[in-house]
């Protein structure tokens, strides 16, 4: 076999797969078209809204390796049991919408350049962390302060005593208390006259985490649980 034939063979066997699993899917997904909520005339476009510091929060998430233990994908039931968990795909008993659980769709990553699907689940999936925080808020807890304390040291919360999530004290700043002190100061003893307040990175990260509410009603064309919607309306 000549070098030429060899290179053609090696390039062809690689190139066909490269086109089929990388290039063509990349081009198709880059050009994802807007989807109508239903086939009825006058139906709205599916446009999941997301508020918060998504872009810079995602950067902090990436830089500190959150994706090593947390995923951001709720798999359909053929690929895993994620949807059965009461608060991963949405909420199983939302006050106004009932059961909002659904799998992740490609429109859920609005505002991000790389979807942090994740590699391991040592911690829970975060697709709907913002919704879980809504529940906490309804119970009278401030979700931001709860998340700040959680980031500072996960095991401060007695419910999470066995968590193996790393503490992130470096996202907080120890500073002298001025006047009444910061409303976001952590409820930990920082020494006489001092308080621990979140740095900008912690604020961006918490804002990003609170934006994780991926349970908007899905368009009819890829809503795999239409019966649920019928019972709601």
């Amino acid at each position, binding site marked *: *076999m000549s070098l030429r034939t*060899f290179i053609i*063979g*090696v390039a062809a*066997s*690689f190139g066909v*797969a*490269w086109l089929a*699993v*990388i290039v063509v*899917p*990349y*081009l*198709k*997904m*880059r050009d*994802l078209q807007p989807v109508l909520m239903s086939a009825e005339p006058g139906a709205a476009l599916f446009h999941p809204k997301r508020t918060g510091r998504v872009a810079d929060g995602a*950067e902090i998430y*990436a*830089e*500190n*390796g*959150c*994706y*090593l233990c947390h*995923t951001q*994908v709720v*798999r*359909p039931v053929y*690929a*895993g*049991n*994620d949807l*059965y*968990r009461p608060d991963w795909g949405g909420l199983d008993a939302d006050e106004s919408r009932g059961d909002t659980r659904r*799998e*992740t*769709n*490609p429109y*859920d*990553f609005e505002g*991000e*350049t*790389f*979807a*942090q*699907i994740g*590699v*391991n*689940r*040592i911690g829970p999936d975060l697709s709907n962390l913002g919704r879980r925080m809504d529940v906490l808020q309804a119970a009278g807890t401030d979700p931001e302060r709860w998340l700040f304390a959680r980031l500072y040291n996960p095991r401060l919360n007695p419910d999470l005593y*066995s*968590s*193996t*999530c*790393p*503490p*992130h*004290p*470096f996202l907080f700043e120890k500073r002298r208390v001025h006047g009444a002190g910061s409303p976001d100061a952590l409820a930990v003893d920082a020494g006489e006259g001092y308080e621990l307040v979140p740095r900008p990175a912690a604020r961006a990260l918490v804002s990003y985490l609170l934006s994780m509410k991926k349970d908007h009603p899905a368009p009819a064309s890829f809503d795999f649980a239409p019966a649920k919607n019928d019972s709601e309306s």
Partner: protein
Amino acid sequence: MSQPTSQSTEQDAILRAGIDRSLRHPVMFFLTSGAAWLAVSIFLGIIASVKVHSPGFLSSLSWLTYGRVFPAHVNALVYGWGMQAAFAAILWLMARLSRKECTMVGSILTAGHVWNLGIALGVIGILSGNGTGMPWMEFPSFAWPLLLISYFAIVAGSFIQFRIRPVGHVYVSQWYLLAALLWFPWIYVTSNVLLHCLPGHPVMGAGINAWFRSALLFLFFTPVALGVTYYLAPKVTGRPVFSYSLAKFGFWSLAVIAPWAGMQKLAGAPVPYFLPYIGAAATALIFIPACAAAINTLRTMASAPETMAASPSLRFAAAGMAGLLVLAAAAVLLNLPGSTLRLTQFTLSGYGFDILALYGFFTLSMFGATYFIVPRVTLREWISRRLIKVHFYLSVYGIITVALVALFGGTQQGLGQENWQQPWLGVLDYARPYAVATTFAWCLILFSNIFFFIHLLLMWMRLGRRSSHPTLLVSHHGGNPHGEDGDIDNAGPGHAHAH
């Protein structure tokens, strides 16, 4: 008739010695700096592993938080050790098999320094909190063009050597190495350009990243390790390859199957449905080329059992092939859509599989190559049989623990995850004992590799034994732990023993 034959043997020996001499510094540079990065990577791996079961460990330092140490560990292992060990093997094997001296030592060494600088800056970038958050591509985005350019400068000579080689038979090792040389830049440029320069859909980005990891394993590290083993097995035993047609079949089946693998990591994520399925099918099918190559080389080695017991190169190469067989079985067992894929997709077993491939298969094969190549390029024999044995046993026991614990523990963890009626915090208990075992095993591997690094450094400093007898693992005379005493090599590099 015998006169010309012995003359050509003599010329052959001189040519080989010339090639070895021309490559002394490039090969030793890449092996030694690779071994240093290996030790750094394992050290970071231990820190990361301790944090999995004791999260308070070193937690006040932002540089050493788990989310930064772990990517630094993996990237140092892949680019610092893996790629550099591969460079050393490629440079030496391509020169020997093409029968050409290396004429680009200066540019190779310069590019090698740039490569190491890139890795160092990349690792510092990750630890200082500037990682990109894409697994195996965490180096800040300035690093990849730097690494790519130095890659071309390092391997260009090997490609030229192959083009201008004296016409003759192309051996199967050359196929594997040439293919790896072509595939790597294709994979690396595709993934980095599509993720850093032309970001498309974020979920497809995650898919490209998963494909990149798989392609780097199966289309770069695998062919390099197989090329090396196909060289070592017949060379050290002095027997022909067991089946040459099986070798051809193994090569082409790898070339056809492996590029499709990787996207099974995205099962259930919103990408086109065929991608995870085809990725799972291809990963499971890698069983075929892996078994073809492993069985072929192991059968070749088994034809000379006494050499197998004595030769450090062969022993490491055989262990690497055993690792490949386990990897092939794991590729099937972990990736069955509908049964095991859902259990293993987001567990420790992903890491276990990567480490099994990178250390249990690739690295052990590279150690085999190192024990063969270094005495030839330095004209010194390995200093101590005991150091080699310690290196071998600690490496093998360590990797068996890391890989099997991660694979099995990962499946247990997956069972816990799938049990949705149980609260999530309980799932952690499934993974904890395995994390403790992993820390212990990494400590064994670190210990073995620190000795390896020192041994290698002493060899580069030409403090090896000046003897014409290689350092073998079994002693026929007993007594001397450093191997047989032999004639001092006063004959110089042209001497016929330098094969």
